[in-house]
């Protein structure tokens, strides 16, 4: 017996994949927001170029 497209198994897998995808997207957003917050608070200073460079 072939599986229909709307089998419960497919729904669960789709739900799981969507859940993982959203969790990863949330992680990316949080890391990006933390980076912006840290840079805007002056916690990160880019290395200064040595005098006479170039």
């Amino acid at each position: 017996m072939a599986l229909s497209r709307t089998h419960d198994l497919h729904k669960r897998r789709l739900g799981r994949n969507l859940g993982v995808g959203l969790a990863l997207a949330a992680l990316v957003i949080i890391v990006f927001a933390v980076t912006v917050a840290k840079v805007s608070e002056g916690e990160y200073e880019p290395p200064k170029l040595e005098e006479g460079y170039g």
Partner: protein
Amino acid sequence: MTDVSLQSASGPQEAGFGDYFALLKPRVMSLVVFTALVGLLAAPGGVHPVIGFAAIVFIAVGAGASGALNMWWDADIDAVMRRTRRRPVPAGLVTPDEALAVGLGLSGLSVVLLGLAANWLAAGLLAFTIFFYAVVYTMWLKRSTPQNIVIGGAAGAFPPVIGWAVATGGTSLEPWLMFALIFMWTPPHFWALALFMRSDYDDAGVPMLTVTHGRRSTRRHVFAYTVALAALALWVAATPIGGPVYLAAAVVLNAMFLVGAWRIWQRDEATAEADSYAVEKRFFRLSLIYLFAHFGAILVDAGLTRLGVWAWL
């Protein structure tokens, strides 16, 4: 391909995302999030809102990871107890190996990200909390001593200290007072649960106080710890994290808590069975309100102090 071959290839029941999320013990996570948030917001100074938000998320994920490790190790006793037999591992939805992988993966991720987002003291405290809950409590104390809940309660008491460390980069007396509140609250909370879950812990062979010392002794212990907790909670009102709102909440809630504990102590098993452990269940529900209200009051007082409302004190 048939239904049978596909089902057998992917396990007896395919787990959904919610089943993996359930490994993280969301209800415990809500307590962790709230107490860590109070520790963070009650601390002097402050932290960038984005950093604070991220830190709370990572603390919650770390707490959830320790829950997954607990479910991995305790799958055998979870399957025996009525309260826990529907958890994802004993229910056959998630394999123990998957629970272990989720627990270890999220533990490492949460600690490293908290260290990078906030500071390494907070990350170290989170790592220690996960270790304490998963190894010291779950693997060692839970199956070996009736003091499992007393000592193991420390794991649940760390979040406000971590929140404070996120905001200040250090610790002081105040977060440890919040730690002490949760630490002293845990035994009466769980012993009340053990009283009305009746044979669960006997069946699982977990040496809860009800199993090793009997139910009469457990009722006495609930009252004794509640007296100690009330003394501590009222003393906290006179410390820097206390204030008028906290004092009012502590007086009312501890009076109610003491009355509940007194009733538990005075009852015998026949009376308790006759009303299906109504007093014990009410005490358990009150214990949840008790903790949220105490920490809510600390938060309100901290906010009002910052706004200068308590300047006249």
